[in-house]
């Protein structure tokens, strides 16, 4: 009989904060007036997300998203908007790259843990223990980067 490494803790994955953000996402909806936007899809599960950004003087003055997805992807997008709002563009990019890097980094090396410097975002750390769900958490961050860097492509997670 084959066995397998146990995956992460379910209660950690679906913390109250995550469920709340998934149920009532912040900054949800289309923003007619925006300087940048981008669309992201996960072709294998059909999740779709669109991010809208209003840049003013090198800062992100407004940011919103719309789309469909699982609790993890909606909560991640909701947290993204909360985290990046009012940040400088440079700072926000760094944040996004760091988030994606940490999420995709080797599961074993624990030095990478807890490096978001943001208590709310920290709750998404548990996703790392559920490898099939990492893309759910990173899709919106990749879409954000594509929007802010003005790339006219649809981001897909593979």
């Amino acid at each position: 009989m084959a066995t397998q490494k146990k995956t992460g803790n379910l209660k950690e994955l679906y913390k109250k904060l995550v469920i709340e953000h998934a149920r009532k996402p912040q900054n949800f909806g289309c923003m007619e007036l925006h300087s940048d936007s981008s669309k992201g899809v996960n072709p294998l599960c059909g999740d779709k997300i669109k991010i809208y950004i209003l840049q003013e003087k090198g800062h992100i003055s407004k940011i919103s998203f719309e789309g469909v997805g699982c609790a993890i992807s909606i909560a991640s997008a909701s947290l993204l908007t909360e985290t990046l709002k009012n940040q400088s563009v440079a700072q926000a990019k760094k944040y996004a790259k760091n988030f994606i890097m940490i999420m995709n980094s080797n599961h074993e090396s624990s030095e990478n843990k807890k490096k978001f410097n943001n208590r709310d975002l920290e709750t998404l750390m548990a996703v790392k223990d559920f490898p099939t769900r990492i893309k759910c958490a990173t899709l919106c961050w990749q879409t954000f980067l594509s929007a802010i860097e003005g790339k006219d492509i649809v981001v897909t997670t593979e």
Partner: protein
Amino acid sequence: MNNKNEINQVKNSMESFRSDFPVIDQLINNKKLVYLDSAASSQMPNQVINEVSRYHSNDHANVHRGIHSLSHRATETFENTRKNVSEFINSKNTNEIIFTSGTTESINLVAQSYCRPRLKKNKKILISHLEHHSNIVPWQIVCEQTGGSLDVAPINQDGEIITEKLIDMIDSSVVLIAISHVSNALGSLTEVKNIIEAAHSKGVPVLIDGAQAISHIKVDVLDLDADFYAFSGHKMHAPTGIGILYGKEELLEAMPPYKSGGDMISEVTFSATTYNDLPYKFEAGTPNISGVAGLGAAINYIREIGIDNITVHENSLLDYMTSELQDVDGIRLIGTASKKVGVQSFLLKDIHSHDIGTILDHQGIAIRTGHHCAMPVMEFYGISGTARASLSIYNNHEDIDHFIKGLDKVITIFN
């Protein structure tokens, strides 16, 4: 036939087959695996796994081109399976069985080799709204290539093709009808025999996508009078990478080759090349010999159990599963056709199917979530995906009880 006694008898005898499937017998997240994803890919019994190993360890060589003993043995394994498939689906001739890499390739072959030369502006392909992407995109592409158009027959809220409407849409502009025997997202059983009869009365040939039917119900291509019938080994307890296209001899004869290369030619010179006879014309290159060996063993296995017994067993399980699901608080069943095979899709409150999938997996329960490669079906119901539990020979009532209990945890976490 479906009286209780009989069902119980079948149930008991099916239980003994379960132990033939090694994958089923494992712990996932410290829980006994409950595998409810056979519609995506079915598991293999030891008889199949061992036949592949036996072939690899004893008989492997390239087929057809060799005079030495190993090559002869490999060729015999290969061609005997062709006979076996032919008998299994009751095709008139063995050379009507073409080995491909899967249902997807079988359908692509027909799209490119049968339809491409026949399609043009004002000619169409007729499909239905419940098709798998593999039975949509190849037709879209060949329509784009030729200027033909794609017509889509509607389905009703239960997820059934509306047979009369589809039949109404058939006229002489239709080059081919391509519909699935059983829907992978919804489990609906299509009235293929009626449709084929109506189509033939108007001179239109029909391709049946049988991927979800072949291991669950008796398929008799002669009785159906299907013109093409496509299916995959991995949905019938054989390995991945092997598929089958059945086609009527006179249709296949008239078609140009799809892929080209070794084995499908009769003579090659730089000025002209002549093609080999059926079925070799469509089998360019070294085929998936061990996949075919495994397919042969899988067919023998299904025959041993008896396809009718399988149908009885799975129908009874599906009835049980569906009625148990209906009692779950906040459930919405997607796909409620009156005749169904082995599959139930559902939504649970406002919980996204991936979250259901993860929480069930944590309890060792494997279901499929998302659009199931049937986005138009999702769009029809105005949803982005479903959770889907699908059944096979090796499932039992206990599996379903675990599954239903697993859903409680989903609800708890999201409350």
